[in-house]
């Protein structure tokens, strides 16, 4: 249904309060059109979706290179302190594009919804995505909807894609770190993972920790403006935390890292929650932070630019890149001793021992 439909077309309004998604909403018929109009187009509101096509078209940006990313969002619980699966999907996809130094342009979002999922929750998620996209200035221009039988999807899964353009002269890649480079982090670690865990059944505690889920493209733009030619790479330490990111980079670049535990910002409540559960903040997911590796000449300017930005106020230099044929990430502990920061094989689980 769009602006050319007959004015008096009868459309049952979606019962957004009590209605639930059923198999008909994924069947491609009128029910699905109603769902898309009533929930997704209402939330995302842009000219591309209004065209009503299965694809969005736009002029090719002039100059630079294009960046494309895709992501899947399966977080549980769907709603958590500081965000939800929708805002997470928007922020995460934008960030993947931004980590290439690119300006994100457009997003797509594909929804796989479990039969029985309440419209009210779906609307809440869509509205959250719409707000996140609008705040970031990156619209969701195309999407898809599928419904699967009860039990085949944990409420809703969201798959996204994002595209952007990288300015000429900016080449950021995980294999570009060289010994002597400086490693920075944009802020405190562990907020998102702890916020998620505070919701999980059997791990209840009240905490004011909010997920740090945020779109980082504006911060990245400021960083490029300040130190663009000296930047080697950016990466956001999501699943697996800082530990996974640094180990990945060590192998990609063929180097080692030496970091200083005292330099790594961790909020006291996050540290306390990790202590209670036996978790190490280094392995906990972040959704609004980035790791930057920069040539030493650019480190000061970069740090200043990050700290001047709202999302980088707590930015810090945490270490350096070294030669290491074992690709170890070595850390000087707050205690003064040494240890490696290992690459966990699976998810970090709480422990009693």
């Amino acid at each position, binding site marked *: 249904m769009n602006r050319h439909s007959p004015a008096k077309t009868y459309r049952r309004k979606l019962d957004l309060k009590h209605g639930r998604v059923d198999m008909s909403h994924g069947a491609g018929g009128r029910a699905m059109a109603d769902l898309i109009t009533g929930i997704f187009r209402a939330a995302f509101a842009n000219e591309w979706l209004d065209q009503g096509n299965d694809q969005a078209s736009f002029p090719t940006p002039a100059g630079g290179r294009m960046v494309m990313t895709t992501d899947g969002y399966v977080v549980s619980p769907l709603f958590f302190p500081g965000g939800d699966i929708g805002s997470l999907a928007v922020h995460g996809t934008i960030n993947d594009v931004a980590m290439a130094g690119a300006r994100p342009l457009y997003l797509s979002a594909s929804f796989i919804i479990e039969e029985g999922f309440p419209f009210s929750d779906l609307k809440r998620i869509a509205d959250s995505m719409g707000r996140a996209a609008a705040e970031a200035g990156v619209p969701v221009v195309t999407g898809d909807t599928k419904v699967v039988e009860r039990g085949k999807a944990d409420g809703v899964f969201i798959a996204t894609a994002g595209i952007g353009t990288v300015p000429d002269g900016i080449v950021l890649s995980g294999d570009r770190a060289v010994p002597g480079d400086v490693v920075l982090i944009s802020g405190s670690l562990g907020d998102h993972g702890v916020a998620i865990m505070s919701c999980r059944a059997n791990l209840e505690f009240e905490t004011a920790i909010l997920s740090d889920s945020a779109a980082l493209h504006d911060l990245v733009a400021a960083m490029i403006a300040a130190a663009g030619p000296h930047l080697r790479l950016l990466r956001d330490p999501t699943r697996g935390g800082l530990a996974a990111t640094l180990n990945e980079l060590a192998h990609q670049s063929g180097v080692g890292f030496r970091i200083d535990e005292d330099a790594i910002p961790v909020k006291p409540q996050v540290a306390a929650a990790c202590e209670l559960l036996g978790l190490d903040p280094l392995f906990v997911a972040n959704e609004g932070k980035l790791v930057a590796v920069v040539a030493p000449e650019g480190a000061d300017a970069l740090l200043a630019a990050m700290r001047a930005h709202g999302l980088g106020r707590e930015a810090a230099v945490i270490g350096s890149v070294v030669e290491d044929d074992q690709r170890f990430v070595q850390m000087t*502990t*707050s205690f003064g*001793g*040494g*240890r490696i920061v290992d690459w966990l094989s699976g998810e970090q689980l*709480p422990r009693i*021992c």
Partner: protein
Amino acid sequence: MKYVNEYRDGALARDIAAAIAAEVRPDRTYAFMEFCGGHTHAISRYGVEDLLPANLRMIHGPGCPVCVLPVGRIDDAILLARRPGVTLCTYADLMRVPASKSASLLKAKADGADIRMIYSPLDAVRIAEAEPDRQVVFFAIGFETTTPPTAVALKTAEAKGLTNFSVFCNHVLTPVAMRAILDTPPAQGEPPIAIEGFVGPAHVSTIIGMEPYREFAENDRKPVVIAGFEPLDVMQAILMLVRQVNEQRSEVENQYIRAVTQAGNATAQAICEEYFEIRENFEWRGLGVLAASALKLRDKYARFDAEQRFAVTTVHADDNPACECGSILRGQKKPAECKLFGTVCTPETPMGSCMVSSEGACAAHWAYGRFREHQARSATSLLPVS
């Protein structure tokens, strides 16, 4: 965090390290065992070994209840979890431990078994109460620290009159294991036992007090210093052990005076006494079958005993024959000296008990310390300038 951060102060650590270095006699070596896996973890995670003199060695003990749990018992738990109608509640530590035929609780969960990770035994009781048509089994593990909470869960289940709650009990005893470490003769060709003293477990001791360690100090002439959980506590305890050895004393001393008393926690001891009794024998991974080393539920509480309710029969499963855990646990060998370390045996594919959880000697070395082998070749090592 109060009562935590003060005991992690790096500046104090360096000075205490200097005190230890000043008091060790240069003409001899010192070898102490920290029994408790939590201490092993603290030592590794904070890099305490970098701060100890070269002639002082810490031997990592078997005080890791996940590590010493035999494969057969995990197999039992998986079988229980697979039974229709059973909900198995477990600490997260056990989820990834490999069982026979590469099974694990995590994999069984993926296959559809109702396995739930809990933080406290009372969570299992709550689940039993909330889901009366499920048979809720709590997979209980741990040394004397963790046993009283299981007893509280039993007491709570009893008070609520629950008929769908049972405990699969694998609680083990510290002093018996320490005795086994000292009494097991070295394998052929190995030198005599090196351990000259023990850093005693922190939280086990809050429960059992100081008395149970007296036999090691008095009969075996092995000093025991009970240490708190933080790295400064461990270092102070090491200093106290060095002094005992130098002065040829052999006593039970308490460094963890803020939490451990001579008598321990009488309330906790009494509630354990009410619900548990000592098993005749129990197999420990890496140490073999030890008499009077583990607990089971008393007969009057048989209705809460999962082994009786579900007729559990444990089948022994062997470790890899090249596994050196036994020697490593006794301090005869180091993790890097085991042929399987780092190749066949890694935290993802542990062959023996020492690699199973992050507190085991091999796992701790892998996760935190294996850079030390390569340190000599690297120009960027982290050894502090003394």
